[in-house]
């Protein structure tokens, strides 16, 4: 009944398209790794030794694996802020702002509900954060649909507006003046904090991220909603002709994407910081864009990519200690991978022969 549309939607594993995607990704990452190796060699470093350490720092020990998972957890969610709207053909880059709004919403809800029992308080706190992020990006979706405002630009602007709002609020109106070291909001009750997964030093946010990615995969792949989104993303005209509710899909996709990033911000608050502060603005949103693109807008691939990028980030400290390489080396490597993956997209459909080639 369902048309095999678009190509990337076919069952993974055995289709030529999936094989090609995998090959392209491997080629692109190899190219980036070679370039980065050459760059390190030019700086007088032993590239092979650096890579070995990078692996050790990312996945080599239990400690490094845990820190990789911690780094990856928020990326699972911030990537979705770009991924979900991208499925209907929108390029949203507002995860950074949605994380901030999510964190702010969670902190405010946590403080307001401080009399509530622990579990209910936690759930409501997190939900408020997701709602705040969803409304934030949903507003960009509304502007897109009702006024034709370009969503890429509006979400870029909303990032800065959200950050300014956060700085304004935590520097005065909701500032906890008992914290003298750092401007931060009032803290949420200790009983609302979600701890680590028992036996590991990784917080529950990781599991939430994994579940959300898995559920999203099912929704996008196996429901009419996901199918409708694919039609809209593939061909807007076709979507109009079939009478799809385009406006509602645009608003919904933007809301959902923003809610995912808002959830990431809320989890940062309830699992790590306990309050809203500038610690929410550490590039989680921008890294999420990278993850979404490397995963080619596929929620299951997001899990793999987030782990790899989380690993690269996590190994930065070890690289710095052992080779005296600046921490920014990991950013250079991520940038190179991003660039080469995008460039590799030009070979899509030309790398492997098609069964039913035109």
């Amino acid at each position, binding site marked *: 009944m369902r048309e095999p549309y678009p190509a990337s939607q076919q069952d993974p594993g055995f289709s030529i398209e999936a094989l090609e995607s995998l090959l392209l990704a491997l080629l692109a990452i190899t190219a980036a790794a070679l370039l980065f190796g050459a760059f390190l060699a030019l700086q007088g470093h032993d590239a092979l030794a650096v890579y070995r350490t990078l692996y050790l720092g990312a996945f080599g020990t239990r400690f490094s694996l845990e820190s990789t998972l911690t780094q990856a957890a928020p990326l699972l969610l911030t990537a979705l802020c770009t991924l979900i709207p991208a499925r209907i053909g929108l390029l949203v880059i507002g995860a950074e702002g949605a994380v901030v709004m999510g964190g702010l919403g969670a902190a405010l809800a946590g403080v307001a509900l401080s009399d509530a029992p622990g579990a209910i308080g936690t759930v409501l706190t997190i939900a408020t954060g997701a709602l705040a992020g969803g409304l934030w990006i949903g507003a960009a979706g509304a502007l897109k649909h009702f006024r034709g405002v370009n969503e890429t630009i509006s979400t870029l602007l909303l990032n800065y507006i959200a950050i300014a709002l956060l700085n304004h609020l935590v520097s005065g109106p909701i500032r906890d003046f008992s914290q003298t070291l750092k401007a931060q909001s009032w803290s949420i009750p200790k009983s609302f904090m979600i701890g680590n997964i028992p036996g590991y030093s990784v917080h529950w946010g990781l599991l939430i991220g994994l579940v959300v990615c898995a559920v999203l995969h099912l929704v996008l792949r196996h429901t009419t909603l996901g199918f409708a989104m694919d039609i809209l993303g593939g061909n807007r005209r076709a979507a109009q002709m079939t009478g799809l509710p385009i406006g509602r899909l645009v608003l919904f996709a933007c809301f959902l994407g923003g809610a995912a990033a808002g959830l990431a911000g809320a989890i940062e608050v309830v699992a790590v910081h306990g309050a809203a502060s500038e610690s929410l603005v550490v590039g989680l949103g921008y890294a999420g864009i990278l993850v979404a693109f490397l995963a080619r807008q596929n929620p299951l691939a997001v899990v793999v990519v987030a782990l790899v990028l989380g690993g690269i980030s996590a190994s930065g400290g070890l690289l710095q200690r052992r080779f005296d390489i600046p921490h920014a080396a990991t*950013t250079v490597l991520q940038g190179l991978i991003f660039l080469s993956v995008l460039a590799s*997209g030009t070979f899509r459909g030309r790398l492997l022969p098609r069964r039913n080639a035109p």
Partner: protein
Amino acid sequence: MTGTFDLGWWGVLLAVVAGAIRVSTPYLLVSLGETLTEKSGRVNLGLEGTLVFGAMSAFATCYLTGSPWLGMLAAGVAGSALGLLHAAICNLPRVNDVAVGIALFIFGIGLAFFLGKPFIEPRAPMLPGLPLGNWSSNPAVRSAFEVSPMFFFGIVLAIVLEWSLKHTRWGLILRIAGESADAARAIGLRINRIRTLATMAGGFLSGLGGGFLSLYYPGNWNEGLSSGQGLMAIALVIFARWSPMRCFYASLLFGGTAAIGPAVQTIGITEGYYLFYAAPYVLTLGLLIYSSSPTRTLAGAPAELSISR
């Protein structure tokens, strides 16, 4: 014996004017560069990375050679190198220029922080300013009117670009490439080459904008040097509707609003300090909402632009 305090509200006005001139210069340079790039039909969203990389290159070169002007040249060259990288990747078929811009943003910042690590501590000679306030005996006035030559360079460039986009052969070629790739191809223009040159020119100017940050105002190199001027400038180009002269006015406006916060702080008003930072962004968003329409593209936008379709 006159200082800022004695000037009261006049001091605030003076600080806003001085701030507008200082803060607007990098906005102006980057937005002129992005206007050129976008006129050719491409968006380079990575100018923030270019700006920071330019700032680092300028500072490092100036520190090593002792010449701030050589530093500015290095900033421009570094910026156009990143522009070339953006263009080279976007010249490949079926590559999204907005995404490449975001990648370049990450790459440029990483590269700048990596290579710039040894230059965070040292001091380097600064670009000289033109002492236009010497007529006054008030030190606040004198320092307010010490204007960088780069500001005047930016004004002249805006005028020249405004005129040449309309009246010269290359201006026309650039606009054709941005308005209709098919028309450009039909008359035998090489679109990829035009866009590559336009992106490199945009990178050069963004690099200069970064050089201004590290060698004039605030005048040092560290990892928090740019507060998003490169991204802001992209919004500014839209605010200015792709016109170089309007880029100039918009830069002054944005520079002025950014200067209001610190200026009113000097007379003891600290409330809402951070909200002033958001003013340019809110202004741009407001203008976008006002001037966009779901049925047609933004007036003045090059038709080939991915963000105006």
